[in-house]
C-alpha cells in the first residue's frame, strides 16, 4: 500500500511539471501584467515603468522567467504577490482554511442529502417518492449553480435575513471563542447549502441507478433465496454494493468542490482561495493565480489518489500492490 502511494507521488511529478508549463504559458498569454495598472498613472514615467519591469524580470525571455518561477516553487517559494506585497504562500495560507472549511461542510451536506434520497428513490423506484426525488434531480441538473446561489443569497441573506450575506466570520466576535466558531458556521451554511443542494443531484441519480441495478443482480436473488427479510437484503447486500462506487468517487468529488468554490465564494463574498483567485486575475497578480492553479492541480491529483485508496479499502476485489 505505502509503496503504491509513493509510486503515485512519483508519477505526479511529471504531471505537475506539464501543468506548470501550461499554467505559465496561459498566464503569459493574458494581456497586461502586474505593472499595467500603474502605467496608467501619469505621475509615473514610462522609463520608470520599464525600470520596474526590468527589475521584476518581466522583460526577460519566457524560459528565463519560467526557470526562475519553477525553481522557486521547488524550494517552496511561489514568489511575492504584487498587490498584497507579501509572499504568495502567506496570502493563500490566510484563506485556505476558509475554503477547506466551506468544502468540508458542503461535502457533508451533499452526502447527507444524497444518500437518503438515493436510497429511497432506488428502493421504491417508480413510486410517488421516487418521482419526487427524480423530479428534484431534473431541476437540480437544469439549474445553474451561480443562478441558484444568487437566489439563495437574495432570499435567505437579504429578504429573510437568516444568514449573513458575506464574509467568513462576524467582526464583532473575538477569535478562538465559542461565539467565533458559531459565527463561522453561520457564515458558511448558506454557501455550502446552495452548493450541496445542486451538487447532490449527481450522486442521488447515481446511487438510485446503482440500487435499482443491484436489486436485480444474481447475488441479490441468492440472498433472497436464503429467506432474508427485505430490509436486511438492503442493508446487508444491496447498499454495500451500491455505495461502493459512491465511496470511490469521494476523491473526485472533493476535487470538484474545491474548483466549485471559485464561483460560490465570489457570489457570497466569502474570503477563500476561490475569491482570491478571481480578484487576482482582475489585478493581474499572476504569481497568486499560478500558485492557486498549481495548488488546485495538486488537489486534483490527490483526489484521484484518494479515490483509488478508498476503492482498494472497500472493495476486496481491488488490491493495490
Amino acid at each position, binding site marked *: 500500500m505505502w509503496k503504491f502511494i509513493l509510486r503515485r507521488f512519483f508519477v505526479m511529478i511529471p504531471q505537475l511539471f506539464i501543468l506548470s508549463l501550461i499554467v505559465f504559458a496561459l498566464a503569459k498569454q493574458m494581456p497586461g501584467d502586474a505593472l499595467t495598472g500603474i502605467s496608467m498613472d501619469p505621475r509615473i514615467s514610462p522609463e520608470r515603468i520599464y525600470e520596474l519591469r526590468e527589475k521584476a524580470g518581466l522583460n526577460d525571455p519566457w524560459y528565463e522567467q519560467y526557470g526562475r518561477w519553477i525553481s522557486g516553487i521547488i524550494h517552496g517559494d511561489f514568489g511575492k504577490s504584487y498587490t498584497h506585497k507579501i509572499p504568495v504562500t502567506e496570502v493563500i495560507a490566510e484563506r485556505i482554511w476558509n475554503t477547506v472549511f466551506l468544502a468540508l461542510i458542503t461535502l457533508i451536506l451533499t452526502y447527507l442529502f444524497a444518500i437518503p434520497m438515493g436510497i429511497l428513490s432506488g428502493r421504491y423506484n417508480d413510486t410517488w417518492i421516487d418521482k419526487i426525488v427524480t423530479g428534484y434531480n431534473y431541476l437540480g441538473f437544469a439549474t445553474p449553480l451561480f443562478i441558484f446561489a444568487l437566489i439563495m443569497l437574495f432570499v435567505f441573506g437579504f429578504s429573510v435575513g437568516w444568514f449573513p450575506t458575506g464574509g467568513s466570520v462576524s467582526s464583532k466576535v473575538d477569535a478562538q471563542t465559542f461565539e467565533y466558531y458559531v459565527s463561522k458556521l453561520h457564515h458558511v451554511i448558506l454557501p455550502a447549502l446552495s452548493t450541496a443542494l445542486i451538487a447532490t443531484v449527481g450522486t442521488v441519480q447515481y446511487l438510485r441507478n446503482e440500487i435499482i441495478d443491484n436489486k*436485480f*443482480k*444474481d*447475488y441479490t*436473488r*441468492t*440472498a*433472497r*433465496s*436464503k*429467506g*432474508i*427479510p*427485505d430490509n*436486511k437484503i438492503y442493508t*446487508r*447486500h444491496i447498499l*454495500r*454494493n451500491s455505495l*461502493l462506487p459512491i465511496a470511490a468517487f469521494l476523491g473526485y468529488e472533493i476535487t470538484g468542490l474545491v474548483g466549485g468554490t471559485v464561483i460560490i465564494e465570489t457570489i457570497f463574498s466569502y474570503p477563500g482561495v476561490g475569491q482570491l483567485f478571481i480578484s487576482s486575475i482582475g489585478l493581474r497578480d499572476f504569481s497568486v493565480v499560478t500558485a492557486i492553479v498549481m495548488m488546485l492541480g495538486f488537489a486534483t491529483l490527490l483526489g484521484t489518489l484518494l479515490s483509488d485508496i478508498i476503492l482498494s479499502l*472497500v*472493495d*476486496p*476485489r481491488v488490491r493495490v500492490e
Partner: protein
Amino acid sequence: MEKPILQIENLTTSFKIKDKYYMAVDHVSFSVSENEIVAVVGESGCGKSALALSIMRLHNNQRTKIEGEIKYRERNIVTISEGQMNQIRGKEIGIIFQEPLTALNPLMTVGDQIEENLTFHTKLSKEKKRLRTIELLTQVGIPSPTRTYDQFPHELSGGMRQRVMISIAIACNPSLVIADEPTTALDVTIQAQILELLKSIQKETKMGIILITHDLSVVAEVADRVIVMYAGQVVEMGTVKQIFTKPLHPYTRSLLKSIPSQATNKKRLHVIDGMVPSIVNMNRESCRFSPRIPWIPCNAHEESPELHEVAPDHWVRCTCYKHFYFKGLQRGEITNGIT
C-alpha cells in the same frame, strides 16, 4: 410410494410485458418426493428457470403473476405472506443457481454468506455457526475449509464457487433443493463432481431434488423421473427409463436424437428446426411443437392438446406422437430416438 414433499398443481406463471400478462409456465403439475431427483429438461426459453423461481417465489412480484397451487408439505405457498415465505426459503427449500460467478455477493466473505442462512433460520451461537459453516464447506468438498471461510468469491474458481452455492442451499438441511442448471457454467470434469456431490448429499439428508437442466446426459445419470417442458408446458413426463427407452413426444425424441454420440459415426448432428416460440407471440391453441415439425400433417395434432397417460406414470401431450417420424426416414421405420 413415498409421500410427496412438493406438489404442484396447475402452476401458471405469467410475466407482464407492456401491460399484458403472458404465461411463461402454463398449467404445470407434478410432484417431488423424498429422496427423489426430478429432472426438468427443455431448450432455453422453455420456462424451466421460470418454474424454479416460481417455486421459491423469487420473481419480481410487480411484474409476475403466479396462479395455481404449490403445496409444500400440504401447505399452499403461493398464497402465504412474504414473511411466512421467508421461513420456507433457505430453511425448507434451497436453491442452487446456474451462474456461480455472479450468484455470490462480491463484497462478503464466503463464510459470512453461508452463515447468513443460519443467522436467519437457527438460534446457533456465533461459534456454533462458524463450526457448522466449516462443516458444510468440508461436506461440499472444499479442500481447506478454514481458509476458504475467510475468502471472497473472486478468490475461488468456478467449481469452488458452485460448491459454496450448494453449501448455502443445504445449510439448514432443507427437505427440497432446486438445482437450476447447476453445472451449465462449469467444465465437464467439474460437472461430474458436482453431480456426484449432490447425490451424496441426498443420500445423507434424503432431500428431494428438482434438477433443471438442458443436458440430457446429466439426466440419464442422476434423475429418477423426467419432465420435458416445451414452451411453458409439460409435453412428456415419466421415469428415466420410460423417457430414455421409450420416448414418445416428438420433442423428446428430437432432443434425444440431438445428443452427440460416439457409438454411431454420424457426420452431422441432428438439429431441431426453428426455435422455441417467444411467450408474446405464440399460438396457444394448437400443439406448440407443430411449427417445428411441419412435415407432420395438421390432423395428426389434437385440437387443444392434453396430457394422456400412455403407461403408468408416463404422460404425453397431444396425439401427434402416434404419427411422428423423423424427416428423411421412411414412415414406420423403427426409431426410438437414440440412434
